């Protein structure tokens, strides 16, 4: 009788261990909030414009985050999920526009304008330096043979 009870207790203990192991395994497959938000922060919901999906409080956004969680648990990676959302809702849901077509302008124009600006500043500064030097020299040593200066000095002397 005693050995039978021991066997039952042992079987129950084994069952409990097995159940907890399976539950633990299931929970480990479930993506964490941080993992979901890592994808969500690179997406925007068209309903609440300019609010990243990871901080958007609406029900629509909550559903989107649930969908991200579901896709992650199915083994999808970040890029696959972003592509899925772009295909479903359009490129405007992406925080970063895809590098194709007219979108390239977003990536190309700012560096061009920046480099153009740097070039212009360089040109302006490099042309100013010699001018400054020339004016200093002129002020320090006025041309002695200048007939206008001579005439001016004579005029001033004669008025004294």
């Amino acid at each position, binding site marked *: 009788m005693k050995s039978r009870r021991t066997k039952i207790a042992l079987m129950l203990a084994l069952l409990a261990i097995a159940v907890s192991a399976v539950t633990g395994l299931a929970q480990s497959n479930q993506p964490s909030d941080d993992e979901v938000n890592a994808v969500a922060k690179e997406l925007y919901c068209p309903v609440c414009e300019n609010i990243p999906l990871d901080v958007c409080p*609406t029900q629509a956004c909550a559903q989107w985050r649930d969908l991200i969680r579901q896709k992650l648990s199915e083994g999808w990676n970040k890029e696959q999920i972003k592509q899925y959302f772009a295909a479903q809702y359009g490129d405007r849901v992406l925080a970063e526009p895809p590098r194709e077509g007219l979108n390239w302008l977003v990536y190309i124009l700012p560096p061009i304008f920046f480099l153009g600006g740097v070039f212009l500043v360089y040109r302006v500064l490099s042309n100013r330096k010699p001018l400054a030097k020339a004016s200093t020299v002129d002020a320090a040593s006025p041309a002695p043979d200048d007939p206008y200066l001579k005439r001016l000095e004579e005029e001033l002397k004669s008025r004294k």
Partner: protein
Amino acid sequence: MEKTVDNTAISESENRARGLPAWIIVAAFAILVGFLALIAWGLNRAQQPPIQVGDRVPPFTLSTFDGQQIKLDDLDGKIVVVNFWASWCKPCEQEAAEMEQVWLNNQAEGQVVFLGVDWVDTEPEAKRYLQQFQITYPNGPDLRTSISQLFRIKGVPETYFIGKDGRLADFKIGPFTSVAELQGMINRLK
């Protein structure tokens, strides 16, 4: 007098030396003009008004949740009711039963087609919504929000009525409050 001429010549040559090469000025000007043209095009596109009553509705295709492809062009000669909705939209729930009831009332006649366009929604929730309200007319996601952009909808629910001639006949912003209201709008187009 000679002195003045010399000074002018010197300053012109200095200016030329200090100025940018002509090709850079032309290129910068071209980039600037191109950039402004692009901004103008974008603004013009963004400010285009929605389809007005009487305008021909541009063609679109709805890919339904059950895999059908419904083209507006194939529905010429029928009254098409396009209803934008979402599972997260509470006002949409108010009109869901009315929409289904009016669809059932008109289905046998074959003159009226209902199309449900699920806007910015997730598929599992959308399917649950359709099941919950027992909606039987064709419904599908607004892929890449292309259909809603045609109508330039502001939110959901919004319903558009396309006449037998393919032109926008009427629309309703917000939920229908009764079967009679929705049926009345359809009857005016028959």
